[in-house]
């Protein structure tokens, strides 16, 4: 009887050790969340949306694993810990990728800005060649006004660049470039028309 009691106490102690002493990986979970927050802070939602989604999915999977283990009698958080540690590594890797992607977006925006400026300058130069004053065609005057607006809008590209909205800056630059190119084409046609009339 005494021996049986001894065994029972031992079994109970082992059981308590297994069930109560397996602590949830709170620190690892916090580290993983902080690593994802750092990716978001680096504009991961803009420059690495797919990667950020994967990180969030992995975090969810780790959370699910923790929840599943917490419901078990014999809790084993080893797998969850591994997932969370890997998640921190992955998040750090994504974070490290972002500056290059930002740089690429910035360069694309700057290139588009330069192209827009060049297109506006070309249209301006062409308009200089267009007839001036009395005898000027009304559409040339209208084009000058349009180009003036496009030139004003060039400043908006810089505003977007300053706000680090590189995709927005590029979109603006492309629309200005297209407008200026269309004006250049119209000016050429107008000049040809005038030449033809002489």
């Amino acid at each position, binding site marked *: 009887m005494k021996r049986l009691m001894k065994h029972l106490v031992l079994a109970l102690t082992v059981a308590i050790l297994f069930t109560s002493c397996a602590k949830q990986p709170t620190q690892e979970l916090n580290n993983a969340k902080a690593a994802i927050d750092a990716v978001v802070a680096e504009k991961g939602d803009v420059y690495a949306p797919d990667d950020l989604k994967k990180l969030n999915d992995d975090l969810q999977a780790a959370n699910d694993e923790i929840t599943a283990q917490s419901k078990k009698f014999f809790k084993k958080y080893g797998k969850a810990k591994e997932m969370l540690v890997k998640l921190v590594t992955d998040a750090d890797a994504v974070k490290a990728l972002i500056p290059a992607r930002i740089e690429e977006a910035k360069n694309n925006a700057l290139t588009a800005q330069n192209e827009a400026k060049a297109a506006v300058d070309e249209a301006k130069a062409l308009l200089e060649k267009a007839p001036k004053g009395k*005898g000027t065609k009304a559409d040339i005057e209208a084009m000058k006004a349009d180009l003036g607006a496009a030139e004003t809008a060039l400043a908006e590209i810089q505003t977007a660049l300053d706000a680090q909205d590189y995709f927005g800056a590029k979109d603006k630059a492309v629309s200005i470039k297209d407008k200026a190119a269309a004006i250049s084409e119209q000016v050429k046609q107008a000049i040809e028309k005038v030449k033809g009339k002489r």
Partner: protein
Amino acid sequence: MHRTRLTAALVAALFAFGCRTGPPVPPEAKQAFELELRLWRAGASVYAAEAYGGFRERLKAAQTGLERESAKLGWFRDHQKAGAEFRAVLALGADILARVEAQKKAKADSFGAEAEFLARRIIELQEITLRLNEKGEARRSLALAELAMAEVQTLNDKAAFETIPGKLVSVRGMIGRSEAALAAFLERYLDPAQVKMWKSWVGRTIEDSKRAGTTAFVVNKIERTMTVFRAGKPVRSFDVGLGMNGFSDKLHSGDNATPEGLYKIIKKIPNSQFYKALLINYPNEEDRARFERARKNGSLDSRTGIGGLIEIHGGGKDTLTRGCIGLEDTDMDVVFNLATVGTPVTIVGALETDHPILAAVKKRLE
């Protein structure tokens, strides 16, 4: 001997249960996860949040089932159930994706309708500014609106719908500024009292032409036409060009405005810089009186002159002048032959307040 048999049995068991790799993982598993990413990229979490959540749950359950099955020894592993579950997940995902795409298309169409309406309004107002040679705020705002519309198109192509409404509001604002500028530009044309006065001038000119059986010219600025009346009846009409600031009433030299009033031809010039020309008697007495009033009230500099040498001339109807009325050379030939010194030339802004241009300007967005 007994130990040898046991070892042989163990080795045989290892071969039997351990070396069999079992069936491959169903390819639908990978496809389902790829579809999940496609759904997310398509914006399923926004456009079909509940269904997408359900899809993810089901995907997770299928994956758990697959993992459970994969944990078994090769001989006992059967992925048929997991494969069927992943196929069901794929079908569900495809259905959600179709719904998301349909919703996005509906959204794009709704923005498209609004964008199309605004684009049409921009074109309508651009044509008006071109016709009126308005190259100030109205034209500038339209050019900016056009640029913003190009950005809307780009955003639409990228399905970045969340930023489109804000852009469209700003486009509306730009169009509104253009409309306001045009309304200010055409203030006199929209004033019924002013139009009534112009009509009375034309009525008097036609009446005089009828009574005396003579020729008279009536220039209508908003129509950009010059109508020839003979014995009170319109016999010919020509398209004309006006001054660079032609829709204003001429007040002083250098304003590039085309005068409004009752004038007459004072000289016929057969060889002009602009083909042929008919000089009119601007400034007349009323012009002089108005000019003096402007000088007295300080709205005009004392060094500013009243201007002159306003002609009806050739050179083309789509050219801009410094206030003269331009015609195509072939039309000028006709007009020149019809005109004599003393032929009345009445120049007015408009003869109706509901002229299509004025109606289009009155038709504001807001």
